[in-house]
């Protein structure tokens, strides 16, 4: 693979990995905002609406970061993957363009109403705006998944003059790959949103401030977090696993570190793959489980990487293996944490259990890692194909693009995103330290009491 193709891969992975830190939070948070808004309308407790305003502000900052880091994604197919774009654009861009037409216009219009329109559109109207923002973010996710699903499992196309064109729109929109991946991705986003909410609530409780809100956030976050974490394992994770086994056995073998075809294959819990020798160092393996999970038979034969010619295997087997194991390990941890917290909540002991609140607070960043690792599994496992089975990644990049230009833009993105990340954290920390009551009720210009940050005492 040429250096410029590798650099383009790094740039795409970096920019999309970074971008997805924001939408996964907004997609999860949008659902939580709808729940908070409904709780307000049902229970008539003003604090729920204050919580909507507070998280709405954090949503707005996150949304802006999602928008500005998302714009490059729509363009990088053309800038860095020109041959792939001209080869498959007639299909993959259908769903990308639909995202713009159906989701982005919806989101941008109703986010403005959600943030600034509550007085004029009334509470019912505001609920509708909240629901439409949520719908917009989840539609957007759906179209992106549909585009990615086509790259994972191409359907509904014809090949003519070296370029693909769409021959069955219905088949592209109902690609069997879409549903499992969509469910898994969305529920992963809900885990992120729930853990952020829980984490901040736990911080308030541990700091003995904003107690009412701390309890509200932890309660809602833990309940939603547990439901979403369990849903990640079953059914959505299980559906994803079966689908990968059916359509992409190379990815399955790389994920599991299965170098040799076996009947009654075991599942590797821990261990370091050695791709050159085809072994796992320091393995902890539970026998027969992989066969059962894949084919529902303890002794079924699972194809290892040795079944496939070298040029059809993922080129970074170790990365696929680790990404997958990190995702699954963290996912298991999320279920354990939220289940334990919910048990304590049910027994009425959670808010006094400082150790559990510490765990909940410190767990906040991990869903981001799990979601990112999940995407790395999906995309690195798809290699060496850019469109699975049809076009190799090496044949998809821009033909005349020099390495010097890509390094320039890669460094530029790195610097830009470092700055954006610092700014984002600063903004969220400011809102979080201000707390829901102040943040939601004070207009923005009266932030002078943030003595620490503004220097104005």
């Amino acid at each position: 693979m040429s250096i410029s193709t590798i650099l383009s891969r790094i740039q795409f992975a970096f920019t999309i990995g970074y971008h997805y830190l924001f939408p996964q939070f907004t997609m999860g948070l949008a659902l939580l905002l709808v729940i908070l808004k409904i709780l307000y309308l049902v229970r008539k407790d003003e604090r729920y609406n204050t919580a909507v305003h507070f998280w709405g502000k954090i949503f707005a900052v996150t949304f802006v970061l999602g928008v500005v880091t998302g714009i490059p994604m729509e363009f990088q197919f053309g800038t860095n993957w020109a041959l792939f774009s001209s080869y498959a654009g007639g299909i993959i861009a259908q769903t990308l363009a639909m995202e713009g037409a159906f989701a982005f216009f919806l989101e941008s219009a109703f986010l403005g109403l959600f943030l600034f329109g509550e007085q004029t559109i009334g509470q019912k109207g505001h609920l509708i705006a909240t629901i439409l923002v949520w719908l917009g973010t989840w539609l957007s996710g759906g179209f992106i998944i549909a585009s990615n699903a086509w790259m994972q499992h191409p359907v509904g196309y014809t090949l003519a003059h070296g370029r693909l064109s769409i021959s069955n729109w219905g088949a592209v929109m109902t690609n069997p790959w879409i549903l499992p991946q969509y469910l898994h991705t969305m529920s992963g986003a809900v885990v992120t949103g729930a853990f952020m909410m829980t984490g901040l609530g736990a911080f308030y409780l541990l700091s003995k401030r904003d107690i009412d809100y701390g309890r509200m956030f932890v309660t809602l976050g833990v309940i939603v977090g547990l439901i979403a974490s369990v849903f990640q394992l079953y059914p959505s994770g299980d559906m994803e696993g079966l689908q990968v086994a059916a359509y992409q056995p190379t990815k399955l073998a790389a994920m599991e570190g299965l170098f040799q075809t076996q009947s009654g294959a075991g599942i590797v819990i821990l261990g370091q793959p050695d791709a050159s020798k085809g072994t796992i160092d320091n393995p902890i393996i539970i026998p027969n489980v992989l066969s059962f999970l894949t084919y529902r038979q303890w002794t079924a034969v699972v194809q290892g990487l040795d079944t496939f010619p070298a040029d059809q295997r993922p080129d970074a087997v170790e990365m696929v293996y680790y990404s997958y194991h990190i995702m699954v390990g963290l996912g298991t941890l999320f279920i354990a944490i939220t289940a334990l917290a919910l048990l304590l909540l049910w027994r009425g002991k959670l808010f006094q259990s400082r150790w559990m609140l510490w765990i909940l607070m410190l767990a906040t960043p991990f869903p981001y890692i799990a979601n990112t690792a999940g995407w790395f599994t999906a995309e690195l496992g798809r290699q060496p194909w850019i469109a699975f089975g049809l076009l190799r990644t090496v044949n998809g990049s821009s033909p005349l693009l020099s390495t010097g230009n890509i390094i320039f833009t890669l460094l530029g993105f790195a610097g830009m995103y470092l700055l954006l990340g610092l700014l984002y954290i600063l903004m969220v920390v400011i809102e979080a330290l201000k707390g829901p009551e102040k943040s939601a009720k004070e207009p923005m210009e009266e932030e002078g009491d943030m003595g620490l940050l503004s220097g104005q005492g």
Partner: protein
Amino acid sequence: MSTLWFILVTFMLTMYVLLDGFDLGAGIIHLIAARTDSERRFILRAIGPVWDGNEVWLIAAGGTLFFAFPLLYASSFSGFYLPLIIVLWLLMGRGVAIELRSRIPLGVWASFWDGIFFIGSSLLAIFYGAALGNVIRGVPLNAQGYFFEALWTNFNPFNSNPGILDWYTILTGVLAFFALLTHGANYIALKTEGKLNERARRISRVGWFITIPLAALASFATFTVQPQVYTSFAERPWGIIFPLIALLGLLGAGFFNFRKRDLPALLSSGTFILGMLACSAFSLYPLVLPAANHVNSLTITNASTSQYGLVVGLIWWSLGMFLAAIYFIITYRRFRGKVTAAASQEY
């Protein structure tokens, strides 16, 4: 069918330039139009609820271009690699500036973002103009339909190997800068009262005076760099309507500005931009990206996707645009009228 999609993509790009054009223009003029922190907030609030939606037209147009003309998308985006990525950075900096400026009440903080907002908006206007200039002038496409051009070479007008920025594209860039400046000033005049309104009108007038000779010069230069322009007008003389629309808009922008009628002035500067863009699209058709070596040019035929793809696209596209129109009507109605002092505190 590919002709229809040529028109639809042009329509979406034009919508983008018309709508994002006025908030870019607002960014260009805000340092001179608004002197105090509270005046700057009026300007930000005037565009705040709409800029994000306006920018969606760019994304949507990009996506539509990608699916309707995959080869054009692939060729132009990879060929204009560096300026395109720089445009993305500018869009990022500018978007962040609008949203973060007033979140920390510190003079230095606000001033920094005011500067970013100005620089981002100005350079974007110039880059967009230069981009259009490049598409009109043509690029060194190879037989596969790809090219790669340096950002600039040596600015020598007789150089056979010009960069993306040369005398002609810089001219179109500067024209775009002043046209959007005028357009943005008209919008700010419409949305504000008192001193801010007066200054915006004055800026609009200055911008208008500078736009006139630049537009004349650029139009003349276009005939010298792209022979296809002659062909188009000779074969389809009815196309003369597009330069006339632009001229009408230009005259109207000045006329209504002197009459202090802000809405007609804004509509006129919009008409001018619309006319100029329609004129460019008309002159190029059926080419979508002319090549220095004419046989390699990308046309609506060789760059477009299959007939079936274009037909199914039209179905969902129509529905999508219908919905988008409803959202835009709701948003612009909700935020219509002058920006009030209370509302300006939201930004």
